[in-house]
């Protein structure tokens, strides 16, 4: 069983569209994250949630809106997609919101905005 699963794996869309990426973890963790990896492989946190409560909200355009319906799910909705949003987006989970324990990563969603 996949511990952290995100869908879709690939997402190709036009500028201006709205899209969502879904993430689910079956590890029983309270904390979930969204990371963005750019073309130079640099990883940066976007959001973290602990038990459905927003903990980290980095300087991310408000076109990006995370939603956590329960602690096993953290979805990412993106409005009015721009070319610069093209990247690989990783979902992750952890049993500790304070960054002391390992993160379990999904396999990533490669978003291409044309």
């Amino acid at each position: 069983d996949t511990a952290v699963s995100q869908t879709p794996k690939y997402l190709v869309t036009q500028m201006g569209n709205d899209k969502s990426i879904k993430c689910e973890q079956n590890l029983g963790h309270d904390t979930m994250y969204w990371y963005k990896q750019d073309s130079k492989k640099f990883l940066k946190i976007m959001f973290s949630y602990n038990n459905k409560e927003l903990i980290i909200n980095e300087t991310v355009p408000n076109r990006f809106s995370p939603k956590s319906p329960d602690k096993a799910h953290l979805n990412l909705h993106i409005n009015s997609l721009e070319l610069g949003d093209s990247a690989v987006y990783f979902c992750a989970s952890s049993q500790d919101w304070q960054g002391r324990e390992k993160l379990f990563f999904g396999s990533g969603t490669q978003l291409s905005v044309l």
Partner: protein
Amino acid sequence: AQSVTQLDSHVSVSEGTPVLLRCNYSSSYSPSLFWYVQHPNKGLQLLLKYTSAATLVKGINGFEAEFKKSETSFHLTKPSAHMSDAAEYFCVVSERGSGNTGKLIFGQGTTLQVKP
């Protein structure tokens, strides 16, 4: 403020020779330090972590890292490289202390190439 610097963007070794991936960090408080590995088109996987216990940390697949506070370093080593070690490696710091939000800071990554 915390930061992490991986000193080499690309390291190339021959199979069977030692691996050294260098990482320096900056932190106002006692840090937690991690090394993650990312194989092509995959998510990241934890290799090892340091959280103020033993300064020499052993991880998976024969990797280990030594926390040196005086040098603010956390270099990753492996005695003998295997072809399957070819991947991207990330050094990560998490700052502990007041106001800790659990934010992890990732280094820029080091690409490890292993030649037959």
